[in-house]
């Protein structure tokens, strides 16, 4: 009798976990990004900034921090609710009066460490609804943790330095990555099913599409941010 009960409960357990298919698929692709995109976006606090002569370090940061280098691709299941765990080592740095990176993708419920790597005080605040915070002026070298519970974009500003802005992209999926400088990306471990594909570019916003993966293979999905 005990054995029969054990088999029964194991079958029930198996049926419950069968929601998430067992096959693991890989998606690769290329994001077509316009070579010239606005560095700013509407609503940023960079409307009226007196530009300063840039130090060599700042120029290097600006190049590496170009919005084209921070394109986030994410896959959101349309069939099941994916299990997410907090992103580890989620760091938003402040260097040469610039947020680095320009876009930080995390899973919802992660804690972001705000680090000041400059020689002067910075503050970070967000006016994004359901993610409002102001961590005040912080001394160099000090990291301040901030829990991000909101889903979606959290817009960051520094109230002291005109033009400092960045985004945290809080996602409800573990299947996301950043495209490399050429726009190529690769996401692994997606179970069989239908997904919404979402591409986020700091200046150009969101582009969405759908994809179906099955059988544990490699699927190519190219996306286009260039206006026709």
């Amino acid at each position, binding site marked *: 009798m005990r054995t029969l009960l054990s088999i029964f409960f194991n079958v029930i357990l198996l049926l419950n976990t069968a929601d998430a298919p067992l096959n693991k698929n890989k998606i690769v692709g290329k994001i077509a990004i316009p070579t010239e995109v606005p560095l700013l976006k509407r609503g940023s606090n960079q409307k*009226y900034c007196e530009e300063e002569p840039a130090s060599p370090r700042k120029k290097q940061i600006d190049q590496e921090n170009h919005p084209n280098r921070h394109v986030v691709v994410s896959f959101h299941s349309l069939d099941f609710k994916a299990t997410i765990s907090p992103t580890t080592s989620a760091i938003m740095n402040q260097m040469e009066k610039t947020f680095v990176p320009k876009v930080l993708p995390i899973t919802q419920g992660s804690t972001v460490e705000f680090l000041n790597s400059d020689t002067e005080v910075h503050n970070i605040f967000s006016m994004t609804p359901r993610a409002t915070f102001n961590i005040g002026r912080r001394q160099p070298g000090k990291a301040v943790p901030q829990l991000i519970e909101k889903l979606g974009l959290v817009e960051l500003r520094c109230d002291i330095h005109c033009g400092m802005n960045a985004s945290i992209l809080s996602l409800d999926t573990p299947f996301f990555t950043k495209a490399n400088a050429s726009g190529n990306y690769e996401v692994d471990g997606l179970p069989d099913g239908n997904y919404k594909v979402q591409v986020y570019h700091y200046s150009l916003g969101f582009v969405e599409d759908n994809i179906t993966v099955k059988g544990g293979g490699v699927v190519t999905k190219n996306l286009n941010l260039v206006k026709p």
Partner: protein
Amino acid sequence: MNRNTCLVILLGFYALGLWGQEKTQIELNGTADVEYLRGGNSSHYYLNGVHKDLKSGAVRPLELNLLAKIRFNPQLSANFRVQMERDEGLKFDQVRLAQANVQWNPQESPWQFTAGRFVTPFGLFSNLQLSTARTFVDVPLAYGYFANISEQIGQVDRLGNGTQIPINGRNEWGIPLLYYNGYSNGLKTRWNFAPGKASWEFALTTASPNLPKNFRFDPLNYGLITRLKLQPKYFWKQGFSFSHGKFLQADLLNDNLIDRSGYKQTLLGTDFVLGFGHFELSGEAMGAFYRVPTYSPSTKKYTTNQNFQAFSAWVDAKYEFPFLVGTYAAWRVETLQFSGTWDEAVLRNSLVIGAKIKDFILIRSAFALQSIQHSNTTGYHAWRTSLTLYF
């Protein structure tokens, strides 16, 4: 600047935008300020910023700005600001091209060069030209105060509020004590010689910064303006400013002055910003030194080579409420002192509460209590609540 000129500039911006889509990166933005203002019985635009006709309370547009930044390449850009505001604080019909310059940031260089009409690099408020960057609705006294000195006839006792002298159809109120509207014409360079620690600005301009009509080029006039910015500690920024220049304009009224070029304005200033957590303390001390002729309206004669000095200091204490993101309260105390009987000393205390409702909406409500030395007259207080939108 008339409305047609403004229309041409706006069309020019639009054309640049169309052209810029192909050739350059162009950013067009703007700000709009509307305020409710109310003042005491002695209110006057030149004394407390509230026109006497609005002292019982009124809602008026305060300022409209259209901004354009055209980036031709990473090193070269052009910057424009068209500003619309109230004439003497009343009728909303003053349009000016506040900023129009070309800026060059050589690659891999700590230098920057600007030519045209640019932000006057004097004082802490050189970085706070737009209302979106300011804590209070008003600028400090020294920045908004009009001295008893005319750009045509020099110093006149009680000019404007006591002595009425019409020039070009308007009663003369004098020129700003420090600078006019925060912009000057000429060439400017900025040297970031110790990144994160120190930088230096130097400008050669067409006149001293107090001259309202500084678009004119007068070979007798010039100005030198310089500012050194230091950061001794991570929480402490210190600035030192100096300006020297000439401003007296050729006019039938001063034809009998032998040497106009002998009349000068010299400014000295130092400022600081200290920031800790949600608290910020900032302030500035300035001296304005004038060498001008004095004019007697009764005898219609000049006394040449007179020296006048004014000293000003202000301190702002600002606290951002961490539990109510985007809100703050601040207090400013400031004074303006004059040498001899040139003008009456002023003391002003101001309180402000501000709230950033959205990334592009700012509301501030400020109350200023102002007193004038040796004057029994009261009623200079002002209450200004402004709504700022930027897009």
